[in-house]
C-alpha cells in the first residue's frame, strides 16, 4: 500500500479515536451540563447587549443537556404593561426559542479541536491556534443564534424590531442558509487558516515520497 494511504488511514484512526473519546466525554450528563453552563454565561451577556430592545433569558433544560432555552419578550410591551398596571413589577409570559447546544457549537468545536491537535504544529503555535480558533468559532455560533433570534424578533406578534420587508427576507434567507454544513465549512476554513503555512503545507504534500 502507498505510504500516503497508510498515513491517511493512520490519521483517520487517530481522528476517530480522539474525536470519539471527546464526544463520549461530552455526552456524560454532568460534563454536558457544565459545558452548557459555561457556554450560556458569556452568550447571555453578548445577546443582551446586541438586542437592547428585548428582555432575554438563556436557560437550560432539566432533562436534556443538549437544549438551550431562550426566553424573550419586548421591553416596550413590558413597560406598557407596567404602566397600565401601575406597578414597577409585572409577571409576563415570554416567548420561547430552543436550540441544540451540540449541533450549534459543541460537536463542531470538538471537530475543530481534534483537527488542530492532530496538525503538525509546534506547541506554542498550536496553543495560539487553539485559542484563536475557539474564540472565532464561539463568536460564529453566537452570530448564528443572533440571526435566528433577530428573525423571531421581527415577527409582528412579538413586536421587538421592525425591519423593512427586504431586511426581514434577507435575515430569513441567511437563517435558512446557516445549516450544519456551514458550521462544518467554518471549522474547515478556521483549521486551514490557523494550522497551515508554507512549510507544513509542503511537508504534507511530500509525505508520499
Amino acid at each position: 500500500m502507498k505510504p500516503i494511504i497508510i498515513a491517511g488511514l493512520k490519521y483517520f484512526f487517530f481522528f476517530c479515536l480522539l474525536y470519539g473519546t471527546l464526544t463520549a466525554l461530552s455526552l456524560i450528563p454532568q460534563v454536558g451540563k457544565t459545558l452548557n453552563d459555561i457556554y450560556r454565561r458569556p452568550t447571555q451577556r453578548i445577546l443582551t447587549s446586541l438586542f437592547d430592545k428585548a428582555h432575554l433569558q438563556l436557560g437550560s433544560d432539566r432533562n436534556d443537556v443538549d437544549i438551550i432555552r431562550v426566553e424573550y419578550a419586548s421591553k416596550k410591551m413590558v413597560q406598557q404593561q407596567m404602566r397600565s398596571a401601575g406597578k414597577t413589577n409585572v409577571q409576563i409570559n415570554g416567548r420561547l426559542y430552543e436550540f441544540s447546544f451540540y449541533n450549534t457549537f459543541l460537536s463542531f468545536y470538538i471537530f475543530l479541536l481534534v483537527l488542530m491537535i492532530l496538525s503538525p504544529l509546534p506547541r506554542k503555535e498550536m496553543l495560539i491556534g487553539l485559542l484563536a480558533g475557539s474564540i472565532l468559532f464561539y463568536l460564529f455560533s453566537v452570530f448564528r443564534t443572533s440571526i435566528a433570534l433577530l428573525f423571531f424578533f421581527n415577527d409582528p406578534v412579538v413586536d421587538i424590531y421592525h425591519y423593512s420587508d427586504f431586511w426581514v427576507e434577507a435575515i430569513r434567507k441567511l437563517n435558512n442558509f446557516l445549516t450544519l454544513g456551514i458550521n462544518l465549512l467554518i471549522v474547515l476554513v478556521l483549521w486551514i487558516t490557523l494550522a497551515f503555512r508554507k512549510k507544513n503545507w509542503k511537508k504534507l504534500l511530500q509525505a508520499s515520497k
Partner: protein
Amino acid sequence: MSSKKKTKNKQAPVDWRQSLRSWLQDRNPILKFLLGFIGCMSLFYIFYYSGLYRNHLELPFLNGQVRISNALLHLFGQATEANGTLISSADFSVNVKNGCDGLEAMAILVSGIVIFPVALKYKFPGIAVGILILFVANIFRIAGLYLAGKYFSSQVFDILHIQGGFIIFTLLSILLWFIWMNWATDKSQKSVSS
C-alpha cells in the same frame, strides 16, 4: 521618561506591521487557496439552493440514493421498502432529506481539486474517483443509520447522524483530497523530470 515613551510609541506600529506582513507571507499560498475554496463553495451553495436543484434535481437524486440504500439493506437481510425518500420496515423508518445526500462533502472535495494548481488531466480522475467513493460511502452511511435506528436507541441514532454521519464523512472527503494532492503532485513532478 517622555523620550522613552516616544520611542516605544514609534516602534510599536512598525512591529505590528512587520509581524502581520510575515504572517501573511507565511500563509500567502494558503490564503490564496482559501479564497478560491470559498469561491468554489459559494458557487456550489448558489446551485444547491437554486430552484433548478430544489425543484427538479433534489428529489430524483435523493430517491435514487434511497433505492440503492434499500437494495444494500436487502443484501444485509433487512425486509425494508423504499418509498420516495423513505426507507421503512415494520420496526423503523428513516427519511433521507437534503443534507443527508453527501453533496456538501463532495463539493468540498471537488472545490479542493479544482483550485489546486496542477494540470487538468490529473484533476478529472481525482474528481471522478473521489465522487464515486463518497457516493458509495454515503449509501453505506444511510443504510448504517437505518440499522443504528433499528437496533439501538434514538440517542445513538442522533449521535451517529451528526457525529459519524456528518463530521466523519466530511473528514473522509478531506483525506481523499490530501491523497489526491499527493498523487497529482507526484505524477506532475515525474512527468516534468522525464
